[in-house]
């Protein structure tokens, strides 16, 4: 029974997730491929040549920019998410329901509205078209997720661990580093990864707030798509997906078997 079930699942996963990548790969290795034909008329490395050669510097710069923005966003969203998640997960206080509604707002409201609305404010504050501005607007989308993930983590967290550590001679500040962070680490990694990937794939908000000054990979990708050169766009897409894919695979392997809450 089980092997069949597993086969069905893995086939479904490969068909839905893998197939588009195959098409993408074929595109990136084709020089000429016209509509009704099943295979490219001419194979070649023109697109990859463009990605690593002609536009190599531009793409590398965008890649670095994207990584920087995503890493900084992920770090900040976890740094805010941990205390917030702890408060929401462990303590009872008034307005807890209201907070969860407010937290979902940036997820519900279309990103265009959020970015447009914030743009005016960011111009006034002088952070429009800056790295900081882009990180801040990404945070509005990442924070809800990171807070929700860590809220769940801390709902399963037993604060008696900290009492036990205090009794064993750890000061209240050291307890955070010695006990709380190690216990919740898998959950923190998940929250950070969520934020990283969300920030990584932001296009609209980066475009509006960054104003073309902060060129992340999606910005470059859309520009290339617009130019109509499908093979090049496909190659850049693969470059775009690769780091996120590596991050995901790494964390899946690392977190494998451990519960997300990291406790019990």
């Amino acid at each position, binding site marked *: 029974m089980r092997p069949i079930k597993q086969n069905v699942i893995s086939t479904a996963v490969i068909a839905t997730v893998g197939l588009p990548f195959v098409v993408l790969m074929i595109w990136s290795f084709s020089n000429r491929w016209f509509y009704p034909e099943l295979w490219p008329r001419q194979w070649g490395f023109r697109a990859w040549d463009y990605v690593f050669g002609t536009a190599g510097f531009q793409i590398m710069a965008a890649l670095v920019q994207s990584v920087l923005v995503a890493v900084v966003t992920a770090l900040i969203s976890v740094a805010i998410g941990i205390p917030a998640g702890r408060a929401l997960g462990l303590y009872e206080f008034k307005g807890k329901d209201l907070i969860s509604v407010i937290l979902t707002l940036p997820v519900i409201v279309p990103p265009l509205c959020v970015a447009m609305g914030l743009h005016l404010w960011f111009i006034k504050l002088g952070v429009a078209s800056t790295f900081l501005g882009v990180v801040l607007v990404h945070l509005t989308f990442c924070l809800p997720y990171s807070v929700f993930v860590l809220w769940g983590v801390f709902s399963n967290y037993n604060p*008696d*661990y900290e*009492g*036990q550590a205090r*009794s*064993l*001679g*750890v000061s*209240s500040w050291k307890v955070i580093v010695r006990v709380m962070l190690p*216990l919740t680490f898998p959950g923190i990694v998940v929250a950070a990864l969520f934020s990283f990937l969300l920030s990584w794939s932001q296009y609209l908000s980066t475009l509006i707030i960054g104003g073309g000054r902060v060129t992340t990979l999606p910005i470059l990708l859309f520009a290339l798509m617009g130019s109509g050169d499908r093979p090049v766009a496909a190659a850049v897409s693969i470059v775009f997906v690769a780091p996120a894919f590596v991050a995901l695979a790494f964390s899946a392997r690392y977190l494998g078997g451990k519960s997300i809450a990291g406790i019990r």
Partner: protein
Amino acid sequence: MGDLILKNLTIHYGGEPVVNDFNLEVRNGEMVSLLGPSGAGKTTVLKAVAGLIKPSKGEIFIDGQPVNNLAAEKRSAVMVFQKTLLFPFLNVEQNIAFGLRMQGHKDADARRRIEQILQLTELTGLGRRKVHQLSGGQQQRVSLARALVLKPAVLLLDEPLSNLDANLRQQMRELIQDIQAETRITTLFVTHDQAEALMISHRVCLLLNGRLRQTGKPRELFYLPADPEVARFFGGCNFIQGRVKDGVFRSEFANVPAPQANGNGHLRTATIRPEDILLSPDANYGLHGKIAKTNFEGSATRIWVNCRENRFVVLTSDNDYTPGQKVRIHLPPDKIRIFPCETESV
């Protein structure tokens, strides 16, 4: 090594007083049980001693020093929680070394102490194991070792045996007893299990509804309960009422000499343990009774006997009785305990 003194301890939790005006002295090297039903405030007292809860009133002295304003990590009292709470990201040895490392002990010294404690808690050879590879009993011993290795003045144990099955619990009880006898560590042991408290401790302290009801040697609490509630907690369920006249407690069931009882004609309550009541199918005794119910409990049978207005519970090893049977019962006067205080009703 040291003693522990709690003076007029009152602790509020969410506005409600959980512990009220609590006094206790645990002498150096003594093992005292804090006994009470769940929700009586036992763990709260323990947490206050450990420094994890701030009492609203009263003082705590460890080793003669007032510790009310001392942070938990600076107190020489280590608490072992009910759940083992071993750190899953550390192995057995690292878990035990946790407190030592935090106190900055040197490697060689720490290693020697860990080896010693592993031996004492019968964990030798398990040092490199991961926490989740241990059985429940082993985990509990690691948790105990982790506290013992710090050689605190006072060890606070919060129902360390409640998560273990019956056989293991008995073994662990003996282990804790042995370790305590060997290390002579002052121990405050919290439990809701009266048998455990009676067996393991030098003195027992009964806490009901946040108030101290009686402190004394296990035998004293068992045989000389201070009031009906204490008696009831230890399984006493037979109460009779009578009046004291001329140094004798007179009731319809028995007359008991009570030379120390003062006051003439006052209503008093007395109790007798179910295993002390004598039961006979023949006309040996003076009181007539009728069996209402029997319950076989293994080593003994519990029998409910209706006698006049009272219903007595009798524990006997004899299990030939059937409901409805007419019997005679006898309440030996020397087994009857008359409560010192005056009671209007039970």
